[in-house]
């Protein structure tokens, strides 16, 4: 029959060790004994035990010292201290040092049975809990991305499959949805993980700077090019090149990029030597590339070259069930980074986060929580420290559901305009309509900016 678990009995009296060992063996435990603290520590260093029964008073290394060492050597083992009446105070001290419990000798057989039985059950449950948590974590995480929403699980699944290939991946999603994190995760899961991950934000640079950034340049290629430099395509050799905000590149660069993707070779700016590239391309954008193609501002051939494996990251408002999980994930990060005893959000705070629309997506959630964590005075984050963006409903607006579709549209436009500080271009983009349409609607609904 399989033994239930192993117990180490530490006592300087041989008769105690022998009798207690036999008593526990009758229960089906595997029992080991040690005559003193020294021998106990040697055994603890060599073998794992579920439970330690340790006599408090022993010559040399006493029970408290064994307890202290055991907490380091085997933090999962439960320690029961055995003591005589005269040393109950010390046993209480032992409890404070992390002993599971103590027994005053001689104790009732029932007391020992119950304590050991309860401990064994607790340990079994704890082991089960750890296994379940691990399984759940695997299910909810893809590298640094956390989610339990079916939409995101489908994204993770697709990304895992994509990671195994060398094909170009196009990541679509609003700002703050985690496009770069997903790109990094795909890289980390791929066979190229040992190679470099090189990221470029295409919107941040002018056309000529971006060209030089991507392809490198030779000395004297342009004013200020005092030496030659490698471009991101060269640096990313054997690894992954992440082209963020690909929807913002100029027509000339679109053509250059198309050539590189086709021929897998390029020339540095001002150079004549053809350089081969094997970098894997992951592109991302928060813009609707298909619409850009339709309007003629993005090359169709490049679109199809990039759109080999498209992955769309849903906005946070479409996966609100992830908010508690993400909050826990970020709080755990801040707990370590800030060394603050942050535990959780209050119910009210979580309700508030769940009610919000998150135009800035996961990044906005992280920023809100970071601010809350910095300001938090205790382990629980309350609504006081959490400052959300503009309210989802204008002040004074009725909170009941509006009746007509027109009213819903009017309110939604009003809210979106406020969120973007009445920046028409950005609000129109967020609403998925063009500026003229938005102006017409503002006029029709007579929406006015607050004083």
């Amino acid at each position, binding site marked *: *029959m399989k033994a239930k678990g192993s117990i180490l009995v530490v006592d300087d*009296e041989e*008769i*105690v060790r*022998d*009798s*207690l060992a*036999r*008593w526990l*063996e*009758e*229960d*089906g435990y595997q029992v080991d004994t040690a005559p003193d603290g020294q021998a106990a520590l040697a055994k603890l260093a060599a073998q794992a035990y579920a439970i330690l029964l340790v006599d408090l008073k022993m010559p040399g290394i006493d029970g408290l010292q064994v307890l202290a060492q055991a907490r380091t050597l085997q933090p999962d083992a439960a320690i029961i201290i*055995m003591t005589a009446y005269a040393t109950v105070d010390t046993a209480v001290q032992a409890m404070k040092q992390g002993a599971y419990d103590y*027994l005053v*000798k*001689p*104790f*009732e*057989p*029932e007391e*020992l*049975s119950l304590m050991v039985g309860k401990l064994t059950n607790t340990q079994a449950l704890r082991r089960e809990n750890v296994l379940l948590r691990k399984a759940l974590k695997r299910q909810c995480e893809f590298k640094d991305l956390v989610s339990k929403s079916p939409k995101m699980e489908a994204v993770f699944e697709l990304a895992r499959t994509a990671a195994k290939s060398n094909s170009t991946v196009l990541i679509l999603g609003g700002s703050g949805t985690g496009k770069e994190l997903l790109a990094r995760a795909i890289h980390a899961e791929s066979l190229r993980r040992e190679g470099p991950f090189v990221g470029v934000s295409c919107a941040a640079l002018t056309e000529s700077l971006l060209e030089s950034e991507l392809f490198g340049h030779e000395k004297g290629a342009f004013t200020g090019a005092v030496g030659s430099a490698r471009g991101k395509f060269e640096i990313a050799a054997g690894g992954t090149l992440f082209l963020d905000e690909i929807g913002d590149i100029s027509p000339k660069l679109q053509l250059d990029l198309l050539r590189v993707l086709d021929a897998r070779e390029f020339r540095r700016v001002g150079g004549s030597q053809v350089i081969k590239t094997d970098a894997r391309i992951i592109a991302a954008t928060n813009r609707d590339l298909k619409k850009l193609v339709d309007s003629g501002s993005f090359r169709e051939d490049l679109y199809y070259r990039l759109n080999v494996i498209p992955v769309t990251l849903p906005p946070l408002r479409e996966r609100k069930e992830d908010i508690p999980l993400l909050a826990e994930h970020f709080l755990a990060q801040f707990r370590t980074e800030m060394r603050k005893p942050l535990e959780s959000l209050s119910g009210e705070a979580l309700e508030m986060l769940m009610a919000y629309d998150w135009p800035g997506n996961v990044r906005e959630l992280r920023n809100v929580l970071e601010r809350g964590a910095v300001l938090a005075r205790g382990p629980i984050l309350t609504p006081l420290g959490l400052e959300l963006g503009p309210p989802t409903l204008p002040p004074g607006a009725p909170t009941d559901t509006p009746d007509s579709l027109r009213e819903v549209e009017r309110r939604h436009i009003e809210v979106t305009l406020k969120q973007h500080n009445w920046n028409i271009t950005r609000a129109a983009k967020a609403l998925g309509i063009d500026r003229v349409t938005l102006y017409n609607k503002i006029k029709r609904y007579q929406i006015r900016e607050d004083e």
Partner: protein
Amino acid sequence: MAGEGTILLEWMGEAPMEGDLLERVRQQVETTFAIPTRVAAVNGSPADSLDPRRGQHSSTRILRWILTTLPPGVAKVLGITDVDLCIPVLTFVFGEAQVDGPAAVVSTARLRLTYDGRPASARLVEARLLKECLHELGHTFGLVHCPDVTCVMSRSNSVLDVDQKRAGFCRDCRQRLRALTEERDDP
């Protein structure tokens, strides 16, 4: 469930041996284990088993003494005593056995009392003694405690626990006992 040798029920109490009681227990033990079983009174007793401070005897020391006086041809010896037994860290024990070993000891002292300390009837004492004998001998055959509280191999921490269980093994323990004895007969 044959096995070599016999089971010896050894009376080692301070009072004279109760022949009738032990004979009835012997018959049941023999039937249960299907091994020839006999009763004998012991000569001598362990000198160091009494703890004068507690007025109880150490079951472990008695067990050690039994092991030094094992008669030849005997597979299992169960010492039966009327003194109260204990081990140093526990207030009392009903008995003690070597799991998968040749010896065990059991005491009638607490079996003779009801839960509130009054004398128990002769029939109740006999039933309890039989259960504890089967229990300790079960250990010597390699069985450990059973979670089924009605099985004779369940742990008894009080006479109430003893009264709750049957004078027999549950199906699992019976199967395990058969497997263990077959393993021994045919290693």
